[in-house]
């Protein structure tokens, strides 16, 4: 039972971290290598909020907001001018990640810092106990996934975004302002990435380079998921399970490699990954 919960919570965490990256990849067809930096920005936003004595929810809200604003600025300054050169845009986001990391170091120092967990202790159920905060994260992942799905399928802006995901040139031809869609998508992806950073810090710690290991895993998951949020769900469940099972039964070090290796193998066998089309 604990193993199952480990798998569920790990998958939930992976989903939350990768969702923002997938959103940006789907619409703009570029991999935002600054995603790890957004995770870090969100984490530090929640650190600031904790220092100010605000309740944890304020920390999450602050992370979302700060991430979205930073995302908007970056889209306008860095990504948009490179619209015609997607490969250069990807490189630019990598450079951006370095710049953001250094700015954070200048502002907050290099040392590892901590954010208290909003929920302490365990949740007891029939089979035993489990970390309450980790269980909350499963809930957070479900809410995030549902909100994104609803936004994409039931709203006009979602419809427009899906059109741009499917075929940007055609959407443009139909009069859809693709530039605005890209702008808001990048902001949303950055905001969600920052929210993810704020959500994961109570479990571990905050430091200027905390986003890098998550970036690698998120990148692998996005590569395997194509552009579909549903296939991201499947990918995080499968790979999350693999990581937990390997870590528990073999060694945590091999478990850390699981996602990268499995992604490479999956793409070799089925280049579309988990995507349906």
């Amino acid at each position, binding site marked *: 039972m604990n193993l199952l919960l480990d798998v569920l919570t790990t998958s939930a965490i992976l989903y939350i971290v990768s969702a923002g990256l997938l959103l940006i990849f789907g619409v703009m067809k570029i991999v935002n290598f600054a995603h790890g930096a957004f995770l870090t920005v969100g984490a530090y936003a929640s650190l600031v909020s904790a220092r100010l004595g605000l309740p944890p929810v304020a920390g999450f809200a602050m992370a979302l907001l700060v991430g979205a604003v930073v995302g908007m600025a970056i889209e306008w300054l860095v990504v948009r001018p490179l619209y015609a050169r997607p490969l250069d845009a990807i490189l630019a986001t990598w450079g951006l990640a370095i710049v953001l990391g250094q700015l954070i170091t200048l502002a907050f120092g290099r040392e590892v810092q901590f954010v208290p967990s909003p929920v302490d202790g365990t949740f007891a159920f029939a089979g035993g106990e489990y970390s309450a905060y980790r269980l909350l994260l499963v809930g957070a992942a479900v809410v995030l996934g549902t909100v994104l799905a609803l936004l994409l399928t039931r709203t006009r802006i979602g419809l427009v975004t899906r059109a741009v995901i499917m075929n940007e040139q055609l959407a443009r031809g139909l009069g859809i302002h693709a530039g605005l869609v890209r702008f808001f998508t990048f902001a949303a992806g950055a905001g969600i990435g920052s929210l993810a950073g704020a959500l994961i810090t109570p479990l571990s710690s905050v430091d200027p380079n905390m986003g890098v290991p998550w970036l690698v895993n998120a990148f692998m998951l996005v590569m395997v998921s194509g552009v579909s949020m549903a296939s991201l769900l499947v990918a995080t469940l499968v790979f999350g399970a693999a990581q937990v099972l390997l870590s528990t039964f073999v060694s945590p070090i091999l478990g*850390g490699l699981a996602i990268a290796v499995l992604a490479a193998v999956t793409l070799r066998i089925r280049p579309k990954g988990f995507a349906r089309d």
Partner: protein
Amino acid sequence: MFKFRSLSMAAVCALLPLSFAALAQGDAPIRIGMPVGLSGANSVVAPSVVQSAQLAVEEINAAGGVLGRKLALEVADDASGAVGAQKAFDALIFQKKVDVLISMETSAARNAGLPIVARGKVPYIYTSFYEGRSCSPWMYVNAWVPEQQVPPIVDHFMRAKNAKTFFLVGSDYSFGRGMLEFTKKYAQGKGATIVGEEYLPMDGSDWTAVISKIRAAKPDALVTSTAGGAPNVTLTKQLRAAGINIPYGNLAVDEGTAKSMGANAQGIYISASYVTGIDSPANKKFLAAMTKKFGADLKTPNDLSVPEYEAVYAYKLAVEKAKGTDPEKVVKALGEVAVDGPRGRIAMTQQRHAPLTMYLAQVQADGSVKVIDSFKDVDAGTQCPAMK
């Protein structure tokens, strides 16, 4: 013609600074190099270590310096690991040309730095507790080794908590493995069983799999030896979040980190050569001086930072005894001097290590540390048989 002129100009320019150096030798500061983990795992503790060194340097300079020369501190970031240590040691020894290295670092950093120390022929006082048996003709250690630190915790668990089975968790490098290897041998020697032994990379922060294994093994007691700083906090946070409350002996946490862990740290047993509660005039004087110098910015003095303070004084005494900073003479003198510091009288006379008074303590709900037992002048054991 032009060539001759420029050559002779170059010669004059080259000789000038040398002559100045010869004149200024008497006034040049003695440089103390301090490679320390300002980033990475140790970054939680490093500020306290730097503060200790700064106070020692300030006090010695105020009292006239060493042989009339002032001390200057050069701090470099070793990123708590081997790669950063190579850069930091290289920069300090070959660029800044320090006269001595006095520092607290992870074992990974120390092991990476020792070959550079040997090349640069600089005395090196290692002020961090560690897994023991690291030997170099240039290094002295004034902090504890497992022979001094582990027995109090294991004995207490077996006697007072009736623990017969132990689970060991550590960071996967020389310190984590070395400490737990000693603990395993010691506990098994006393009749206990080790029901699990798990390691995570030094910067790892996801202890989920390890915690599942602890739950499955149901040990009587837990002993951990992670890298100092961040891993302690993440492990304890996650242990408490998972509801694990068995007797928990942490071989690598210091008072400062325990304080920053808040309520999660309550109940942890530590074994240290320094606790702020040591009731001696020297410790009270030290704490008062630290509070006066740093005020609200003071980081709790702890078992990783106080040896740094005493080491700077040890170097001062060694230089005075050797009547200069000649590395070989200073290295010889370091084994002969004794410092009276907050931890008592520290002399690095046992194969480059020092006998130390150890305190077994438990972290309280408010983050303070309560001493349960103390052991005077515990032997360091056989650390470097080649260096008498």
